[in-house]
C-alpha cells in the first residue's frame, strides 16, 4: 500500500505544480467569480434565483468543459510518460503495475476533483456572507455529480492512455469522445426525435447511456421537472423515472462506467508491452 500512496502523492504534487492545473483551477474559480461579478445571484430567470441559479449555471457549464479538461490533461498521463521514456525509468523500480496505475488514478482524481468542488464551496461561503440562502440539497447533489463525472472521464482517459502509444493520438481520441458525447445531448437527440425514424424508447436509452446527458438532466432535476429549459429528452426521462431513482442512477451509473473503463485500462496496461 505504501507504494500506492507514494505514487498518488507524487502524482498529486507534480500535477499541482503543472501549468495546466493553474489554468484548470483558474477557469473554475474564475467562473464562480464571474457569476458573482455579473450579479447572477441577484437575478431571477425562469424561476431560479440566488445561489441556486449560480450553482445551476456553474454545473451546466462544468458539464460541458470539465470532461474535455479531464480528458486532455489525463489522457497523456501514461502515454505521455511512455513517449518521453519516463515510464521506462520509473518502472525500473520494484513497484507493481497495479500500484503504479491505481496510484496515478488516485492522485489524478484528487487533482481534477478538488478545484471544481472548491469553487462551489467558495461560492457557498461567499453567498452566505452576502446573506443568500444556501441550497444544501443542490450543493450536495452537485458535489456527488461532479464526483461521478470526474470518475467517469478519468476512467475513460486512463483507458485511452493505457493502449495508445503516442500522446498526440491519445489527445485526438479524447477530443473525439468529448465531441461525440456532447453531440448526443439534447441537441442531436431532438433532431432524431423530429425525424421520427426511431422510437422514443431507443432515443431515451441513447440519452441514458450518455453520462453527459445524465449529468445534465440530474443537475436540473431538483427544480421543476416541467421546465422547458430541460429539453424534450430530459423531460421524457424525468417523466418516466422517479426523481430519487434518477439522481441515484445519475451518480451510480457514471461511477460504475468510470471504474469499468479504468479497470479495462489496467488490464491492457498489464498485458501489453510497457514501453
Amino acid at each position, binding site marked *: 500500500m505504501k507504494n500506492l500512496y507514494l505514487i498518488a502523492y507524487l502524482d498529486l504534487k507534480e500535477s499541482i505544480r503543472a501549468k495546466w492545473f493553474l489554468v484548470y483551477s483558474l477557469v473554475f474559480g474564475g467562473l464562480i467569480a464571474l457569476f458573482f461579478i455579473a450579479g447572477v445571484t441577484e437575478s431571477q430567470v425562469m424561476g431560479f434565483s440566488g445561489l441556486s441559479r449560480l450553482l445551476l449555471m456553474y454545473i451546466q457549464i462544468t458539464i460541458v468543459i470539465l470532461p474535455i479538461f479531464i480528458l486532455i490533461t489525463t489522457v497523456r498521463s501514461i502515454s505521455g510518460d511512455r513517449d518521453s521514456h519516463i515510464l*521506462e525509468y520509473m518502472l525500473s523500480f520494484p513497484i507493481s503495475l497495479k500500484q503504479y496505475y491505481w496510484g496515478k488514478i488516485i492522485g489524478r482524481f484528487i487533482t481534477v476533483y478538488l478545484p471544481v468542488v472548491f469553487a462551489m464551496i467558495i461560492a457557498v461561503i461567499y453567498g452566505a456572507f452576502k446573506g443568500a440562502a444556501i441550497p444544501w440539497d443542490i450543493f450536495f447533489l452537485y458535489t456527488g455529480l461532479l464526483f461521478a463525472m470526474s470518475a467517469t472521464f478519468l476512467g475513460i482517459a486512463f483507458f485511452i492512455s493505457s493502449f495508445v502509444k503516442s500522446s498526440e493520438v491519445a489527445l485526438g481520441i479524447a477530443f473525439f469522445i468529448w465531441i461525440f458525447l456532447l453531440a448526443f445531448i439534447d441537441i442531436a437527440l431532438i433532431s432524431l426525435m423530429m425525424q421520427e425514424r426511431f422510437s422514443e424508447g431507443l432515443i431515451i436509452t441513447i440519452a441514458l447511456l450518455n453520462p453527459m446527458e445524465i449529468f445534465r438532466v440530474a443537475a436540473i432535476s431538483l427544480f421543476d421537472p416541467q421546465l422547458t429549459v430541460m429539453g424534450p429528452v430530459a423531460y421524457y426521462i424525468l417523466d418516466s423515472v422517479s426523481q430519487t431513482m434518477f439522481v441515484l442512477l445519475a451518480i451510480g451509473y457514471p461511477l460504475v462506467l468510470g471504474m469499468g473503463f479504468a479497470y479495462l485500462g489496467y488490464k491492457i496496461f498489464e498485458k501489453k508491452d510497457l514501453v
Partner: protein
Amino acid sequence: MIQISHVTKKFGQNISLDNVSCEFKKNESIALMGANGAGKTTLIRSILGYYHPDAGEVLINGLNPVKNRVDVLSHISFVPQLPPPIKLSIDELIQYVCVSADVDKELVKHYANEMKLDINANLSKSFFKLSGGMKQKLLIAISLAKKSDIIIYDEPTANLDPKARDDFYRLLKQNEQEKVLLFVTHRLEEVKDLVNRQIYMDMGKIVSDERF
C-alpha cells in the same frame, strides 16, 4: 543470474530479437554492442520485464520479470541512455526511489557526492531542469545506492565529462563484486578495463560472444 532462452520479440513485421539465447552469471561485466537497431535495447527491456516475448523465456534468478516484476526489479539497477524529463523535484525522486526500492537516502547522497554532484543545494529543483550531466550523475548515484545484484547501464557516460567518467569508473570498480554489470555501449575502449565479456549483436541476433 540472467538466463535468456530462445527469446524472439517482434514489432509488427520487424523482428527485434531473433531466437536469442545467452546467460549472464555473477561477476561478469558485459559490454553489449551492436549497430543501431541491432536489438540491444529490446534485450535490456526484456530483462527488465517491459516486453512480453513472442517466444522463449527470460529468467532472472529463476523468476520471470513480467510475472514477478517486484521481486526481479528489487535486484536490478538501471540507468537509461538519456535521462528522462521527470518533473519531480530531486527530493521527490529520491523519495520515490527510497520508498519503492528500500534505498538509504544517505547512500544516494554519498554516491552523488562521490560523483561531485551537490544534491543538497538542488533538492527542490525539478529533475528535468538539471543539466544533462547532473541528471546522469544522479541516476548513477541512485543505481549504486540501490545495491542491486544486476546493474544495467545504457550508454551511461554519454553526458559525462572526462572527470565524471573517471569518478564513475572508480565507483563501479569498488562495487562490481558479486554482481552482473551489463553495459550497452558503442565505445568499447571506455569500458574495456571494466568488462570481462563482450557480446556483439546484429539484426536481432548475437553474432559474437567473447570472454577475456
